[in-house]
């Protein structure tokens, strides 16, 4: 996925209404009218959110029917999850190194604690 596409995805997800729309679509496809129902929002406002989601590739809209049903496209969401997974790996491996290093520190402390007795 090109970097600018990923930016589109993040920008699209950065809005609570759009995330709520995605959550609704995760349960199955529906019409714009149905999507607008839970929100105190005009149809044009909902359509605007849908255009952002569509541009980000997060939803697809049917061409076949007059009511153009919306459905979620999990592809870009998977990409986002993968990015997060990578960030996780950075910190996971960093802290694994810290754990290893702490054991080195503990071993050194024991050695130092013994030294005065030897002298």
């Amino acid at each position, binding site marked *: 996925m090109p970097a600018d596409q*990923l930016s589109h995805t*993040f*920008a699209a*997800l*950065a809005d609570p209404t759009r995330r709520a729309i995605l959550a609704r679509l995760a349960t199955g496809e529906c019409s714009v009218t149905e999507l607008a129902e839970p929100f105190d929002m005009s149809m044009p406002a909902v359509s605007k959110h849908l255009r952002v989601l569509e541009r980000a590739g997060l939803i697809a809209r049917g061409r076949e029917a007059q009511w153009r049903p919306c459905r979620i496209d999990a592809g870009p969401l998977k990409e*986002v999850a993968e*990015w*997060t997974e*990578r*960030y*996780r*790996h*950075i*910190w*996971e*491996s*960093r*802290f*694994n*190194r*810290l*754990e*290893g*290093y*702490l*054991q*080195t*520190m*503990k071993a050194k*402390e024991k050695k130092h604690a013994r030294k005065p007795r030897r002298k």
Partner: protein
Amino acid sequence: MPVSHAANSDTFTLTTPSDREITITRLFDASPALVFEAMTKPEHVRRWWGNLDDRYSVTVCEIDLRVGGAWRFVGRGPEGQFPAFHGVYREIDAPGRLVYTEIFEPFPDVESVVTQILTGEGSKTRLTVTSSYPSLEVRDMVLKTGMEKGAALSYDRLDDVAQELARIVAQ
């Protein structure tokens, strides 16, 4: 999948408790005092923060551990210097609590506030690090660029580990 067989590696968790936060927790086999020391003294931080293997080093590691004091870390890998991180200490209550700001230098106007908590659990210590960002967009940008800039590189390391695991399994 655990990254390696390091002790307590299965206790690592990364969560996004709110739109603007990332929280990481992990247990360590050491006292809170020792973990605090390892995370706040340059001679120790240099040994684990950015050193994926022999080709990596921490070239700058400045820590002025006072309220209002500055810190700055720069890592270096086979392909050169990585962008630096820096910030200022806000609260120091060793070893239990440390609060500091963090700026990733390519994004100088984005400041996060990091709260690091260490609590003893028997002979172990639980570390909880919460980074708070100005907005959801910034937080997600961090989740995204963390890999591009910081340690794309731990990928190499991961591959090594994966190959090592594969060898062990094959035996």
